[in-house]
């Protein structure tokens, strides 16, 4: 038997891994139980062909996280840079817009469709970024449910949107967009990202408007060492602080004695040994609600067994091409390109349809990631990721569905580039079922890790402090898993408070401070 202060079950990027790194650095003796060789399985990078790098999750929002500064991740090999181009959106009618980190350039793009909309968008983002650190803190870097912080976030967002709180809480995403923008194109282009896979249902009153506005705060950056370098830096920060990372180890049971959570039994991969690990202060489960409930036993926290994430899923196709996809010149420079609806009415209809199990939903909003724009590599091969969703396909028929979906997508891409078939060197499709097979925490949830939230808004998520003393959650909580490490940060705050180790001289960075530091440096230069 081995004893620690804190036992972290599952080293996911968003939850378990940063939580462990924070708590170990704060002085607790922490062990991570990780089933994989590496932690952060859904944020690793890989090569399908020499010099052609892909990421499991192609977007990097880590620049928003206080962890970069708090955990000194740059000293552990983590490099991050702003991309020259953020993303592009284009429809089937030849309309497109490119979004840049430089707001003036983005506004110039939108002004092609409506100068008034461009002004509105620029002014809105100006107000939003002025509020961003406090708003990020209240909305995401707070261990919700927290009524006061939520109220504060709503108030700040209402100010940004220049509407009353009461009106904001009555407004859906489309209603907000129709009130802000006159141009059909602008409405669609600024909806492409939040519609696909972010953290709210755009058609819900209040939730929809907030989810759309908050998605504008998700500023992407590029990690030249591959997105996995974030995982590696967190692992190394943890190990450098003398944390224990138990790789290739599977959790059997979560132990409850005398009504308190006291540890877990585990088995190292490839053996039949059952080892008991005890935790003096806390057990953090990053395993998702259903699996945590199963390992805990239904008597301990009955709500877990009935808890079910909303049903949004993604399908992913990776292609190795002999040349880049033939896209319009300005769009081709973007690392991510969204193929969107041809009209605003189509967009709104699609949002409604995405709540059904219609296969058509999948082909309404398509995200292309041009990895060669992120990682220049082999000169003769080019990595392209195609992601599409959503739809509540919670079933086991994905093996049969995968082939026809891939064919359909080839047809869509072929319409963009008639030589597509001749330039595909390799193709692999990963279905939601494949992701579910990979990640017990993502069972019937979002493939990028953790449970997803569509119809479950902030106050409906599970609490970081569970009803079982000394058991904490870093998954199925708010916010959902993304690469900004918010869930792990929040659970670390909660556990550190309970252990009396929260006050640390290094634990003070604000959300978005990496971007703020770069902006300040650029201004002084």
């Amino acid at each position, binding site marked *: 038997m081995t004893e620690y202060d804190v036992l972290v079950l599952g080293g996911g990027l968003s939850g378990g891994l940063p939580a462990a790194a924070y708590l170990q650095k704060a002085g607790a003796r922490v062990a991570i139980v990780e*089933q*994989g*060789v*590496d932690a952060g*399985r859904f944020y*690793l*990078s*890989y*090569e*399908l*062909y*020499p*010099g052609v*790098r*892909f990421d*499991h999750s192609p977007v990097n929002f880590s620049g928003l996280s206080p962890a970069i500064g708090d955990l000194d991740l740059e*000293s*552990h*090999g983590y*490099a991050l840079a702003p991309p020259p181009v953020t993303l592009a959106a284009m429809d089937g009618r030849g309309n497109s817009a490119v979004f840049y980190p430089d707001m003036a350039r983005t506004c110039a793009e939108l002004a092609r469709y409506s100068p008034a909309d461009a002004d509105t968008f620029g002014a809105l983002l100006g107000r939003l970024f002025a509020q961003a650190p406090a708003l990020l803190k209240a909305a995401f870097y707070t261990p919700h449910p927290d009524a006061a912080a939520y109220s504060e976030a709503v108030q700040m967002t209402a100010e940004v949107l220049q509407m009353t709180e009461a009106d904001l809480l009555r407004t859906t995403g489309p209603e907000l967009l129709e009130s802000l923008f006159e141009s059909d194109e602008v409405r669609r282009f600024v909806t492409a990202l939040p519609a696909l896979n972010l953290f709210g249902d755009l058609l819900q009153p209040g939730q929809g408007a907030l989810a759309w506005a908050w998605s504008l705060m998700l500023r992407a950056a590029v990690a*030249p*060492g*591959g997105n*996995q*370098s974030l995982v*590696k830096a967190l692992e*190394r920060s943890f*190990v*450098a602080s*003398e944390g224990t*990372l138990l*790789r*290739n180890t*599977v959790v059997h049971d979560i132990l409850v004695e005398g009504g308190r959570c006291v540890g877990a039994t585990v088995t*190292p*991969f*490839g*053996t039949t040994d059952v080892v008991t690990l005890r935790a003096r202060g806390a057990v953090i489960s990053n395993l998702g609600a259903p699996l945590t409930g199963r390992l805990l036993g239904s008597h301990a926290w009955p709500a877990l067994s009935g808890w079910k994430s909303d049903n949004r899923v993604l399908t*992913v196709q*990776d292609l190795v091409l002999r040349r880049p996809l033939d896209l319009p010149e300005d769009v081709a420079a973007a690392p991510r390109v969204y193929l969107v609806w041809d009209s605003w009415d189509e967009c709104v209809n699609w949002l409604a349809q995405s709540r059904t199990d219609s296969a058509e939903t999948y082909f309404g909003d398509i995200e292309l990631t041009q990895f060669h724009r992120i990682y*220049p*590599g*082999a000169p003769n091969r080019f990595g392209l990721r195609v992601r599409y969703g959503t739809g509540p396909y919670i079933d086991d028929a994905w*093996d049969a569905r995968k082939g026809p979906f891939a064919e359909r997508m080839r047809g869509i891409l072929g319409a963009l580039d008639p030589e597509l078939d001749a330039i595909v060197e*390799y193709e*692999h499709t*990963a279905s939601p079922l*494949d992701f579910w*097979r*990979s990640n*017990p925490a993502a069972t019937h949830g979002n493939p990028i890790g953790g449970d997803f939230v569509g119809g479950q808004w902030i106050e409906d998520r599970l609490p970081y402090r569970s009803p079982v003393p000394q058991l904490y959650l870093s998954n199925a909580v708010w916010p959902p898993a993304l690469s900004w490490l918010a869930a792990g940060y929040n659970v670390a705050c909660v556990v550190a408070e309970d252990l009396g180790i929260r006050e640390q001289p290094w634990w003070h960075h604000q959300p978005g401070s990496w971007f703020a530091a770069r902006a300040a440096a650029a201004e002084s230069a």
Partner: protein
Amino acid sequence: MSVDAPLEIVGRGHQGLRRAADLAKSGTPVVYREPGLRAGGRLITESFLTPFRFNLGPALVHRRLAGAVPVIEPDLLVAVAAWRLGRDARPLSAAETVAATLDASEVDDPETRAVLTALALLLGIDPDAPWSGAGIVQGAADLADLVLVGGGNGSIPAAWIDEIVAAGGTVIEGLSPWQPEPPLEGSLGTCRLFVGVRGAGPSLDAFATAYGFSDESSLLEGLSELRHGRVGSPLGFVLSNAHLDSTPTTGAITSFVWQGPVPSRDGAFSRYAYIEDVLAAVGVDERDVIFRLLWLPAETREILGGTPSYLDS
């Protein structure tokens, strides 16, 4: 007080990483820079956005590499037709080629000759190469020490990196521009086909099972055909991945790696026809395949670097 500048080590392969770990543990400040995506060279384990784990390099490793990482010791290593090779082998006397070595060592039994020749191929040794005799002597001597790593070979470099970091060193991966390896010389190279399937996959009783030949002469004839650019039916091994797939969460799925020689003149080679032939040879229904990825010899070399052998320690 003076502070020594850290020792910079630029690696490509596992030996440099091991050396860096030793230096770090002995108190030398170390910065290890890996030009490739991930440190560990041929000991990397990869999932490729799938539910499976694949060892990219050798399937069997010498136990001295594993160190404290838990290992599995398979009883049956290699199967050729009805013949089996366990962990015992008689000492051999080296001659130029594998066949000459077997002759010089008075290995007359055709079953033993076939399975030792197959072992050479499995270990990345071309049985006709002039240095192959020394290779199989070493391979046979090491049989008792060839092991599997339970969570995948990647556990080994991961442990070494943890040692470096725990000793205060730094490991930086993936930040260098991509550099191609020199082209592969010679007429044969080893390809690797990574396959993930629903259900049980090929039925195996040995860790590595040979396909496409049944004895020493048919193996050598097959290699000769390959040298002339004629692929025919695939020749190679199914490497069981059961020790990597046995988690309670993955359900009824399994994976395996096909390792086999193909002509390195890739232009004359149909990637997809070869995959179809391999799947047919090992009895896997294509409809059950969740994932397939074939690296031709040049690609295998580009990603893994070095010679395709477990012996490069």
